[in-house]
């Protein structure tokens, strides 16, 4: 079932992109222009999607979807990453990654509080030192200067 949706998605994506590619010219003063490669590739995507719809042998045999608990764990990790990337420009690297590490270690992996905080602080600090000082990269800073 899911596979059929995915195949439909490929067909739609290929079709939409092909239409957009036609608007960029297919050929111009130097020969093929901006639109040609996108057009050809999107047509290929569309056709392959069609092929997948009809070719039974291509579909995945037993899809190994996670259990409900596994699913929440994955969602938890994704949420943690979203939080990190979202907060990064506002509170700076150190704080944002600390918060995310707490989310991941404490809530997703259910490690106890003391260990979580210790691990988070250590890892954030060492990454900060490694990249920020040793490699002289400018990691984003928060409003408090770090």
């Amino acid at each position, binding site marked *: 079932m*899911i*596979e059929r949706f*995915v195949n439909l998605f*490929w067909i739609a994506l*290929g079709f939409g992109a092909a239409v957009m590619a036609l608007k*960029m010219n297919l050929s*111009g003063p*130097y*020969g*093929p*222009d*901006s639109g040609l*490669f*996108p057009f050809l*590739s*999107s047509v*290929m*995507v569309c056709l*392959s*999607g069609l*092929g*997948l719809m009809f070719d039974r*042998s291509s579909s*995945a*045999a037993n*899809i*190994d*979807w*996670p259990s409900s*608990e*596994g*699913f929440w*764990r*994955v969602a938890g*990790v994704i949420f*943690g*990453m*979203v939080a*990190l*990337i979202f907060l*990064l420009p506002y509170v700076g*690297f150190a704080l944002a*990654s600390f918060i*995310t*590490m707490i989310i*991941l*270690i404490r809530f*997703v*992996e259910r*490690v106890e509080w003391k260990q979580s905080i210790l*691990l988070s602080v250590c*890892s954030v600090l060492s*990454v900060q030192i*490694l*990249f920020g000082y040793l*490699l*002289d*990269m*400018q*990691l984003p800073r928060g409003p408090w200067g770090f």
Partner: protein
Amino acid sequence: MDTISALSQGFFLVLQPQNLLFCLIGSLVGTLIGVLPGIGPLAALALLLPITFTMTPVAGVLMLSAIFYGAMYGGSTTSILLNIPGEAASVVTCRDGYQMARQGRAGAALGISAIGSFVAGTLSVVALTFFAPLLGGFALRFGPPENFALMAMGLVCTLFMISGSKLKGLIMISLGFLLATIGIDVVNGKERFTFGTIDLTGGIDILALVIGLYGVSEILLNVEKIIKTTLVDTKVSNIFPTRDDLRRSMAPIMRGSILGFLLGLVPGGGPITASFMSYALEQKISRNPENFGKGAIEGVAGPESANNGAVGGSMVPVLALGIPGTPVTALLLGALVIHGIQPGPMFITQHADIFWGVVASMYVGNVMLLILNLPLVGMWVQLLRIPYRYLFPVVLLLSIVGTYSANKNIFDLWVMLGFGVLGWFLYKLEYDFAPFIIAFILAPLMEQSLRQSLAMSANGIMIFTQRPIAAVLFTISFLLIALIVFKRHKNELTEEINNANKSSL
């Protein structure tokens, strides 16, 4: 002989204590850079370039080359241990290397990687020593038509690598091409698929893509099950490759070295293409191709040798002719210019001491890196014994910083996460990412070469038949495609016969 005596002068220069020290520092930094996901040799070289201002030219270029080499050595480490490519040239190593690590054979994979890199690096420097001007001339003959033909061949080789449904592989290739067109058309500067945002004008960053698709998705896959302790279930047994491993790897290493060196020479090649082609070659030649993707050591030995061989190969056009084929060699060139040395066709004769110093430093650097990396294998393997629930958040953090380090752009992080989720999803549905990545990487240069070839040709597409090298490469590609079709046909026929036999029983 003249070359030998010049080379010994070079060694004399390199083996002086302070130059040796810089070589060591460069190797260490390079290895570290290679191990850290995201930050690649180009970023490291750009960061450390100012330090070389105060050094002598030989010491400066020595250190920078050592970083370049070291990054290639170190890049395989996280690929093998964590399925996160250290840089794009190590993507292929993830395939079998990571599987080997899951089977408790991380040490063997890391060891073979280091040995293969050493052999390839040394062989390519030998070729450089004796044949630099000749090879430089050969590299020059690769213009747009030849580049296009070479990359087309590389793409055909990818078709070999597709495990599972060929249609799904085809979609991945087409998708790779399509997504690579997002951004600015390099030929005429027009925006494609940018939807009016500034972020998309730069296109999708390859690093964010690769780290997301491989690294983040792998973490998501692992997190599903509560991994009580470590990633590796079986006890990590021998740290080093067994004799059997070495025996099986020797031929792939030799093939990979030569293939890598040749591909490093020409602009359409480079370490990434070399690693992919080597993998496809080994898979095609192997007596047990079904082992590939499940921990075949040939799938690590070949590509890792190829990408180091390509580094040596890419130095040839720079040193012999002053033509940089890759961004890294362009930066090395720039470093020389800052020191007042203009690399060019006269470089070897006018600055013989620096040329031979650099060549000698590559020998020394290779040895140094092997000595550094082999003992480290034991250390890296211990890393896998860290309980996964402590390991993966740190790995995620490193992925984020590594991705951010490329362009200092938050958008790249969203790309990384997005492709991580997509990769997790598509992996479940048995899609293979390798064709996607190689199509994505090859697409811009391929498109540019095609359009350039057609622009410079008076009679359109016939230019490909008029240029001998391009014609040869295309013929090989067609033969390879015929081989695939023929083999598929043969498999279907065999299946039919088997079915007929079964039903008659």
